[in-house]
């Protein structure tokens, strides 16, 4: 029997990027932060051809017909990646009709797949990419600000990897992660306590195993004692197989320790810890299991009883312990849309609290690429990589730095957004020549 997931896979096979407007571009004269073994190439050149980086280094001859971007005195980095967003799924947070990140009334949960709802025309995308963020993980959520509130499942569903470049298809990889919430959130969904959340999760995983072992009998009729819905079980098969990473939201040290035990129990799971406000307290367990972390360094308040040990030093302490982590955020929230562009500021603040500068830039480039397994195509400026390149007028982690040029998939991004249009319309209030709506 062909599973629904297999059908969906056909529908969602992300078409290879068609680069109608890919240009041949040479970025010259800048300090190139390659994020590779090449380190920083001063006064270097990046050549971009057919959407890919073709050369990086000093004394590179610029072939004829290349569009030259003079980056003298500027900084050149890979495009940045925000590893936790709702970009493309949400136009106005508190407006349900403009949101596609939660499906709390759906009769399934793990099977919810955000990739069908992606809208590359969402205004936040242009606002985000023109400041140097070129890739993102797009996550489902288990709550909505509209009627409906939280869904009743630990599982939020399937997230997607996207690029923020031009074109009608922003999808890079559907079903890039399975999102599950543990900790206090999971506890409240499972009936009111962590003990229930973990029993529920472990039961679901064992049902997935049973299903795999006894597909024929399941096909005859759904087992009466099955707790998990068939759609959700099928969505979880590739998770249990390690094809789709399991993104686990947990904050408290003891919860994170349980997550590492889950990894021990199911070695095939590719667990990524999301949140991890107290992760610095359990670095031994994280190191032992190799679980990477996605965190927001601005989360330093004892915001909930499960994050009393939250600290601005979290990222620096994880780095000291050799834990692989990506930095997300924008404001203090975990999953950003409007200000997903501000990962430069959040990463910079981790530096203010002891994280080495280079590690901070890695946490918004190569590290998320490694965590999601796309480091062969994105995250560093090396020949063969997809050409996501940003030219900055200074240190990208400084709040006063601007992105002067942004290239995604080899295409130069116009530095225009709904915000810049509003800005230009109202820039001169003294000009009484015509009403603002004609400007």
């Amino acid at each position, binding site marked *: 029997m062909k599973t629904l997931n297999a059908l969906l896979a056909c529908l969602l096979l992300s078409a290879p990027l068609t680069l109608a407007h890919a240009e041949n571009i040479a970025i010259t004269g800048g300090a190139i932060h390659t994020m590779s073994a090449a380190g920083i190439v001063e006064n270097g050149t990046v050549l971009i051809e057919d959407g890919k980086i073709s050369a990086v280094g000093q004394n590179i001859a610029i072939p004829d017909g290349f569009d030259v971007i003079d980056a003298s005195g500027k900084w050149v980095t890979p495009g940045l990646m925000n590893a936790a967003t709702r970009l493309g799924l949400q136009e106005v947070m508190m407006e349900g009709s403009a949101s596609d990140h939660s499906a709390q009334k759906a009769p399934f949960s793990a099977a919810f797949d955000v990739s069908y709802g992606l809208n590359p025309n969402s205004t936040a995308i242009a606002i985000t990419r023109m400041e140097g963020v070129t890739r993102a993980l797009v996550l489902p959520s288990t709550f909505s600000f509209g009627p409906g509130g939280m869904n009743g499942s630990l599982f939020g569903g399937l997230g997607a990897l996207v690029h923020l470049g031009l074109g009608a298809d922003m999808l890079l990889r559907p079903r890039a992660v399975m999102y599950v919430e543990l900790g206090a959130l999971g506890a409240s969904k499972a009936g009111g306590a962590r003990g229930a959340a973990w029993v529920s999760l472990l039961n679901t995983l064992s049902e997935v195993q049973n299903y795999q072992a006894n597909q024929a009998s399941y096909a005859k009729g759904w087992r009466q004692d099955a707790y998990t819905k068939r759609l959700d079980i099928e969505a979880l098969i590739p998770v249990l197989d390690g094809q789709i990473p399991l993104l686990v939201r947990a904050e408290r040290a003891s919860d994170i320790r349980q997550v590492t035990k889950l990894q021990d129990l199911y070695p095939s799971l590719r667990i990524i810890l999301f949140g991890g406000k107290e992760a610095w307290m359990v670095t031994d367990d994280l190191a032992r299991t190799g679980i990477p972390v996605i965190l927001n360094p601005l989360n330093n308040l004892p915001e909930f*009883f499960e994050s009393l*040990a939250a600290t601005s030093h979290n990222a620096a302490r994880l780095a000291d312990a050799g834990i692989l982590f990506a930095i997300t955020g924008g404001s203090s929230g975990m999953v950003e849309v409007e200000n997903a562009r501000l990962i430069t500021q959040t990463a910079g603040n981790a530096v203010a609290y002891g994280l080495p500068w280079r590690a901070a830039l890695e946490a918004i480039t190569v590290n998320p690429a490694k965590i999601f397994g796309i480091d062969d195509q994105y995250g560093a400026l090396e020949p063969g990589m997809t050409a996501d390149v940003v030219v900055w007028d200074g240190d990208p982690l400084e709040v006063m730095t601007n992105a002067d040029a942004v290239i995604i998939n080899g295409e130069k991004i116009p530095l225009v957004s709904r915000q810049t249009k509003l*800005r230009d319309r109202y820039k001169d209030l003294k000009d009484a020549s015509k009403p603002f709506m004609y400007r």
Partner: protein
Amino acid sequence: MPSQTLKTTALLAIVALLAALVAIESGMFKGSDTAKSEDDDKTKDQKELVVIDPNPFPSTYKALPSAPVLITNVTLLDGRGGRIDGGALLMEGGKIKAVGAALTAPEGIATIDGTGKWLTPGIIDVHSHLGVYAQPQVRGAHEDGNEMSSPVTANVWAEHSVWPQDPAFATALAGGVTALQILPGSANLIGGRSVVLKNVPARSMQGMKFPDAPYGLKMACGENPKRVYGSKGRAPGTRMGNVAGYRAAWIKAAGYKQKWDEYNKKFEAGEDAKAPTRDLELDTLMGVLNGEILVHMHCYRADEMVVMLDVAKEFGYKITAFHHAVEAYKIADYLAENDTCAAMWADWWGFKMEAYDGIQENIPFVANAGACTIVHSDSPSGIQRLNQEAAKALADGNKAGVNFTKAQAWTWLSFNPAKAIGVEEQTGSLEPGKNADVVLWNGDPFSTYTRAEQVYVDGALVFDLNDEAVQPISDFELGQPGEGDI
């Protein structure tokens, strides 16, 4: 503590008293009996004047002990738009004694070499809910900021909800915040009184209360009140319902004020007048109409702000500041004309419909129109980095061709907010005679990497990045895994 204002107030009181005595002596009051023998006849004819106590929860704040300090070789931003490279500042007795390029320390005074460091006035946040929405977020227990039982709750005072043990006061202090206005939330059309606090550890709200700061009144436009009450099936459920609600409240307040004015007039005339029955809600609204309480109004949309300015004119009060003012850039000229401040985020937008048109140049565009410009937080996280918010706004303005200096941008963080909460005589700038509310930054505070190294309130060191003994830890955090970890 005895600031210029206090001195002035005291002086005015003495003058008033003398004038009254002169008036009594000269028989100026009608009813010569009163003038001749007020002890006997006045008590017989006239009961004692009923006065509404303007300060029933007085500040008990006392500056922490301080020694004179000279800080030298700093880049000094004075909070009024001035900058001194290689500057110095002398604090003594809790006050700023001198500010200049080269100051020599009087004998025996501690000197801090601030080479490579920056010195600014303490940051003042005009929009905070610290203490009323305390950490940790505990449903119910720590939700003390919105009295969502009626759309007009001018009778409530935020100070009665402030929990001084909120751990977020300390993290805000580590971000260089020396004073802040705590507001009720924005669920209500009229949410209640605000309170101005000094960001110092204390056992009670009164121990933090900024002496002689006027009260504010929180009002709110737009989506929040109409959503909160509309969803309960009661007014207001629309923006027009909102406006009807404000106007009804002000009509009542005007009537109440009239009664009190008549009473005071009759009393002055020596008549045996009966004081009106007090009403806590109308006391506060009357305070606004009398110009004693400053209006702070949560408002996002440009068109709504213009309506609110008209409501204020209709009833004869002033809106001191619009808060959030995400569309202030569209009407910055109106704000300047009306002498109304805009307190803004650098770049929050899009989280609700009325925030959809937010732009990153809002702050510099408002400043460019000559309107009073303030950077605010409305967030226990954001309050820790208001300097970075000003930096982003400054950079975005400069990029759009609206050029301000770092020194000018600091007025958005200290002097303008001080003015909006009525404490600009005491604090908000580095000027001799003012309270020594000062932050020494370990670098340029417009950099992401810079942190507040030392924070002084009234000349006393209240936070030191390099000395854990001078980092306050709230009772709540004691014995917890995060104790003392910023």
